[in-house]
């Protein structure tokens, strides 16, 4: 497959830890910022209620306000990252802030799909690898992590680990394939399907 989007193969960058489970997309970007009709500029509101207090001041204890977060490319979180709302504004905000991957023990389904469609890698690691990594990045904010999507390997401080991304999504990301363009190439199959009548008569 040949592509029209920016291909993703390998990258390296500082990681920061958000040692929480069930981080929901209302935390990633609160609903009051969803009135925009644009998909850009949302990084300013990433984790708004954890980053800022009611008067807009930075909460110094939150990791994204630490100097180590400057230039961070990888966010390491706990289980079930991205649960709740289907808002694609969540990966838009993470990517706009500069993140290129979220590493977690597991992801919510819709977030994972939305992330893949925006070149933000949802990297799921087995608990036995994830837990020490999370602890390490928590104690060494800004620790360098490198990601190789082609080899499906993540090189961590102290070792490497394999991960797996849906093979089709992975191929699209590596080749920069636009999925809508891909589906449009099946226009004949779609038309043939539609010519077959109402779907509730086919069960």
């Amino acid at each position: 497959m040949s592509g029209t989007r920016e291909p993703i193969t390998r990258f390296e960058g500082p990681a920061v830890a958000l040692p929480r489970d069930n981080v929901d997309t209302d935390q990633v970007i609160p609903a009051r910022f969803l009135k925009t009709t644009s998909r850009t500029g949302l990084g300013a509101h990433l984790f708004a209620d954890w980053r800022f207090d009611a008067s807009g001041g930075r909460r110094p204890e939150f990791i994204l306000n630490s100097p180590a977060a400057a230039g961070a490319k990888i966010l390491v979180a706990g289980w079930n990252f991205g649960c709740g709302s289907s808002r694609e504004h969540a990966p838009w905000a993470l990517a706009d802030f500069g993140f290129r991957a979220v590493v977690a023990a597991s992801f919510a389904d819709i977030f994972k799909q939305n992330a893949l469609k925006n070149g933000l890698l949802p990297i799921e690691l087995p608990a036995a690898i994830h837990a020490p990594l999370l602890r390490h990045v928590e104690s060494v904010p800004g620790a360098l992590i490198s990601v190789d999507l082609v080899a499906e390997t993540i090189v961590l401080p102290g070792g490497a680990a394999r991960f797996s991304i849906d093979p089709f999504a992975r191929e699209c990301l590596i080749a920069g394939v636009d999925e809508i363009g891909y589906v449009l190439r099946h226009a004949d199959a779609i038309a043939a399907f539609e010519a077959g009548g109402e779907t509730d008569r086919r069960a």
Partner: protein
Amino acid sequence: MRTIIDKIWDAHVVASPPGAPSLIYIDLHLVHEVTSPQAFDGLRARGLGVRRPHRTFATVDHSIPTTPVGLPIADEVAARQVARLEANCEEFGIRCAGRGHPSQGIVHVIGPEQGLTRPGSTIVCGDSHTATHGAFGALAFGIGTSEVEMVLATQCLLQRRPKTLRVDVEGRLPPGVCAKDLVLAIIARIGVDGGTGHVIEYAGDAVRALSMEQRMTLCNMSIEAGARAGLVAPDDVTFRYLAGRPASPSGAQWDDAVENWRQLATDQGAAFDRRVSIEAGDLSPMITFGTNPGMGIPIDAPVPQPASIGDAVARGALTRALEYMQVDAGRPLLGHPVNVVFVGSCTNGRLSDLRDAADILRGRRVAGGVRMLVVPGSQEVKRAAEAEGLHTVFLDAGAEWREPGCSMCIAMNGDQLRPGEYAVSTSNRNFEGRQGPGGRTFLASPATAAAAAVTGVVSDPRRLS
């Protein structure tokens, strides 16, 4: 032998390229103002139209005010978003129940009302509560904006076949226990990620005994257990609900459709990837105490103590949730003061929900210092409620009777908590700040919400009915 999930899936596979996800045909695409503008921009950038406008239906619900429709939208950003949806629908030839339209309402309330929601169909919307439509035996799930654009352009989605989870609810719900209590109990049991990667089929005698509106409440919160979709096989209850709806088939076509819909039920002996069984008779009214919908307890049960949790990560999460909520572990929430009561949302904004709340409020007053908002799920719900005088019950009790919309469920439109306030809410999410920054949410049924409104504290509705 196939499950209902397999049957619907199989009937919608357009193509299965080797190694790639299947192309699944989408029968109905519901659209709202918040998750669609960027998708329409994408179409324009590609020079594409909407492939099947007649399979697409739009409304405004998330960001609109619930004040009288004659007033302009004061929030300029929200006003622009609403105007953008209306303009996009005009440009692309999509039906739109805009503000003030007699069919306007929360997208998951109006789909069924209009008869757009059909058994055996695939339904998507840029909204995670799309599983609501699963109550009719449809495979309905939430999608992101990139997928909204894909469906607008192609009427298809790329999907891997989901795993299946059967939740059997046997026996009978006790008096005073409703579908909201049931789904909160299911989520508390399997966890907020217990359904990840799965589609849930809810079955068993207790599910069969639910009305369509209750089944919608049940399916609606599937995503709060991590499942993108949840459904109930259609039966006579379903068909009675759909008969005569504006978009429902009629005459011979109706008979033909019902005949087909009857074939959807899971075959005897079909295998599921996972099964969970719940005894309905054991359930009580439920309420959440924490910051995700899995943190729910029977209303008279104590809030769990962090010290009782073995797993360090879970203990930390519970500790943080209790700190945010500022509730006491080891004691029930009963008697906990409440500032706001919200009755509404795609979970509990239908006529029977309003009746449940009105039954408690009738002849009583909302307690001093408590604000109660009642927000019907649609214009049609509002008209039906007013026709039977429910609005006067609410107004006489001192509650607010508002215009349809998502309102304080998502708090985008100005209906929101102030920092530190406590709400008993019939909505679906108790995440930190979901109902306003710093706000604290107890999720519960309409009856439990109304009981809190009249007493000013968390109360067991069975003692008031």
